[in-house]
């Protein structure tokens, strides 16, 4: 029968619905086959699902599919009446029929003939339908505990949402965020104006106006807060739409394990730990294939036949465990089995025989390197090709797909005891708890998942040497690293008494990270940096703060890897003082090209603080600074008035070409005065070299 051409859009929705119903039906069938849970309820659930599929197919005029659903309903009648588990052959046939139902629905096209439902599947359904005598008796009822069961929640209607819709919602949320920022800015501007005009508005005639303006300010502030709440609610809503519990991808693996074991004459039970973790749907879709392959690999290669397991004093039923954990913006998925483990000798022999490695190379390989041979394409220890394995294709595809997600995969094995594959994948969507800290002039986020604890620096617990600093922590010594130094913003310095030290742990290593201040904890959405900056190893991403500012988020794995960072070759250090971020970047670019180590601060006060802590060879300072801050001339005067800094070379730089300003600067003790126009690369470096040279000679 031809599908009505006008039903194209509803048909697309039917495909999505059918896939959802079939997934649920799969789970119910597996539970009924195992005889798990409340069988009466499971049968009722299955009957409802099949009935819905039948009815909807009929609505579309898909008579073949409606008939197939009807036959499935009939097949389970007997077991449903008896409220008993499903025999394995019947469960097999029903599962295959469900697969066929989904495939046929997907193949339907509006305006074309309905594709035929595979008759072989219906035939198998008929032949596997048990006679009444072979239906196992229902399990004995469990005594009532007297507890009242909660009423079943009614099923809610669902609406499918496309990727374009999500992109549209996200754009609108960002527009709202910008709107909120504008409201916030205007409210603060109004508050500033009112405060500034307080004296004027105090006049009795203007009191009503003052009152009205104050009301406006309160109203604007309240509108800003309400907008912020609405944005947070919308963002949570989009996050709920875009993410799914990992369980949605993992639960169907129960079916895969069951089918593989039946085909191979093995027994295995799959357990899932952390299945309630919520991940981006796109990531889940991408992980589906690798997880199926790892599970198939575990059953086919790892799990031994029951008799072999019994002989090894193992439970004849193998255990497969999939574990999901989230660490900041990284998700960890582990697939572990308690089977035979990797056969290293066989792996090595195959690699040698295929020319992948030489004898010398193989002999030099560590066990971990031999284990990683499983990821090489074309490598298989199977003598024969089967439906499941033997072509050596599976694990190299897994490796490739994981790498496409910017992830990594490791393997660990113990002969005779089992194998574990661990996948690490970065996530784009998802919020993380961050510890917000300050260091030098910056504010940064440290994933709380990577922070073991926070301690206050105590002299008696620290060991400070010429090149290294260590903290005595839990009866071991761990390196102390200053965050400002790690980020190239100041020289390494020993923590002051009571300075906060974050015990950061990652990859099995720990450091004590010295920060200036702990601001607090926040749950924020961390997004990857722009593509151009993603290769920077220091940064996991950036979170958006309430005012729209970015909070850079550090990568714990990078921080702990810096514990062995060699002391840098000493170069001459220059402190650049300029309130313009672009000017500081330009100066840095020029000075680093001349081989100088450059630290930048945005204010005169910041410069004085930096100079109190570390030695610099020269200071280059802008003359004009932000209103209310020390300008370059005042900074110069303070430097010259400080005995320890009196002879520090200082070059002043300004956009102004006024001769008087130049004269004043030189009279105050500036070693040189340049206009920014003059700051061509050669001129600045030349001037600095000349100043340093004069100082040395003097």
């Amino acid at each position, binding site marked *: 029968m031809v599908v009505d051409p006008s039903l194209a859009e509803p048909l697309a929705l039917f495909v999505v619905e059918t896939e959802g119903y079939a997934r649920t039906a799969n789970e119910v069938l597996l539970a009924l086959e195992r005889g798990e849970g409340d069988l009466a309820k499971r049968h009722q659930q299955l009957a409802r699902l099949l009935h819905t599929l039948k009815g909807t197919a009929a609505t579309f005029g898909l008579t073949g599919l409606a008939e197939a659903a009807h036959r499935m309903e009939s097949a389970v009648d007997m077991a449903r009446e008896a409220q008993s588990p499903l025999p394995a052959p019947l469960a097999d046939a029903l599962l295959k029929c469900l697969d066929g139902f989904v495939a046929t629905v997907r193949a339907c096209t509006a305006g074309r003939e309905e594709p035929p439902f595979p008759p072989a599947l219906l035939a198998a359904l008929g032949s596997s339908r048990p006679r009444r005598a072979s239906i196992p008796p229902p399990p004995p009822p469990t005594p009532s505990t007297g507890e009242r069961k909660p009423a079943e929640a009614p099923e809610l209607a669902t609406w499918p949402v496309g990727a374009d819709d999500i992109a549209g919602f996200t754009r609108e949320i960002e527009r709202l965020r910008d709107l909120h920022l504008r409201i916030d800015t205007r409210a603060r501007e109004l508050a500033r104006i009112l405060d500034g005009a307080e004296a004027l508005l105090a006049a009795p005639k203007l009191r009503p106006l003052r009152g009205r303006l104050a009301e406006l300010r309160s109203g604007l502030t309240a509108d800003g807060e309400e907008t912020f709440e609405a944005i947070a609610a919308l963002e949570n809503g989009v996050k709920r739409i875009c993410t799914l519990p990992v369980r949605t991808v993992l639960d169907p693996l129960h079916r895969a394990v069951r089918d593989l074991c039946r085909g191979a004459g093995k027994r295995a039970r799959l357990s899932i730990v952390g299945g309630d973790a919520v991940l981006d749907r796109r990531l889940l879709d991408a992980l589906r294939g690798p997880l199926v392959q790892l599970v198939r690999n575990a059953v086919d290669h790892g799990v031994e036949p029951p008799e072999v397991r019994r002989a090894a004093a193992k439970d004849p039923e193998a255990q497969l465990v999939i574990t999901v954990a989230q660490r900041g913006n990284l998700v960890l998925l582990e697939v572990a089995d308690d089977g035979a483990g990797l056969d290293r000798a066989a792996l090595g022999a195959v690699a040698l025989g295929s020319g992948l490695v030489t004898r010398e190379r193989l002999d030099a390989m560590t066990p971990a390197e031999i284990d990683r041979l499983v990821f090489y394409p074309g490598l298989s220890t199977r003598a024969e090709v089967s439906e499941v394995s033997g072509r050596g294709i599976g694990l190299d595809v897994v490796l490739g797909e994981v790498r496409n997600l910017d992830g990594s995969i490791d393997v660990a094995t113990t002969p005779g005891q089992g194998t574990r594959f661990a996948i690490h994948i970065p996530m784009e969507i998802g919020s993380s708890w961050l510890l917000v800290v300050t260091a030098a002039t910056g504010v940064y986020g440290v994933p709380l998942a990577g922070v073991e604890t926070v301690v206050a620096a105590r002299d008696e617990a620290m060991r400070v040497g010429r090149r290294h600093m260590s903290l005595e922590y839990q009866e071991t010594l761990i390196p102390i690293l200053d965050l400002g130094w790690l*980020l190239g913003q100041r020289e390494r310095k020993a923590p002051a008494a009571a300075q906060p030290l974050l015990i950061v742990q990652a990859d099995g290593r720990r450091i004590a990270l010295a920060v200036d201040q702990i601001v607090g904890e926040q749950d924020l959405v961390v997004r990857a940096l722009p593509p151009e900056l993603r290769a*920077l190893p220091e940064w996991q991403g950036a979170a958006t703060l309430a005012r729209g500012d970015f909070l850079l988020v550090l990568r714990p794995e990078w921080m702990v890897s810096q514990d062995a960072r060699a002391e840098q070759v000493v170069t001459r250090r220059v402190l650049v003082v300029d309130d313009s971020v*672009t000017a500081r*970047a*330009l100066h840095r*670019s020029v000075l680093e*090209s001349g081989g100088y180590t450059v630290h930048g601060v945005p204010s005169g006060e910041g410069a004085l603080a930096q100079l109190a802590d570390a030695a610099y060879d020269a200071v280059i300072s802008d003359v004009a600074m932000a209103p209310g801050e020390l300008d370059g001339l005042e900074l110069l005067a303070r430097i010259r008035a400080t005995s320890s800094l009196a002879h520090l070379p200082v070059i002043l730089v300004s*956009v102004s070409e006024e001769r008087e300003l130049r004269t004043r600067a030189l009279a105050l003790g500036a070693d040189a005065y340049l206009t920014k126009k003059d700051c061509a690369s050669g001129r600045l470096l030349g001037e600095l070299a000349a100043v340093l040279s004069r100082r040395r000679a003097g």
Partner: protein
Amino acid sequence: MRIRPRRPELPGNDAEAALLRTRAADLAHGTTEIEPEEEVLSAAMFSVGEEIYAIPLEHLRAAIPLTAVTPIPQAPPHVIGIVRFRGQAVTVLSFAAIFGVGGWRVDPGVLVVLEGPDGRLIAIDCEHIPRAVTLPLAPIAMARSARTGAVVELALPDIGRVMLLDDLGPLFGAFGRGA
């Protein structure tokens, strides 16, 4: 909460309004210097120190005040930081650092957001809001045939020496190297 579509913000004073009206009229009626049949390239022109640069207008997405740039410690020196633009993080580059331009008249206070061929956005710093100009195509075509890099050097009668950034490749491919 009702969200109204954004409207262009009106100038705050009569002088600015008059200037905008004049400019609008000029654009509507065209300039008198270019012959009607002469092909032109619309470009955004700005100065960096003593030099004048121009970028084809088709790549320009916005000119915004340089506020709230978040510096990225340990990034290459030509990376000033990231800025929020229409809800996304956009990399801000130092134009002078990338092109080796020496000296500047005022600290750059404007960010010009550019879109590359694959839809990627980056921002460059400018001393002032670029001016929209039309450049005659004939000298550009001649200069292109002789050029060796991304910049085409033009000598224009009313303007003088203009460096036309004909190829945005160096900006979008600026990572991993400095000036």
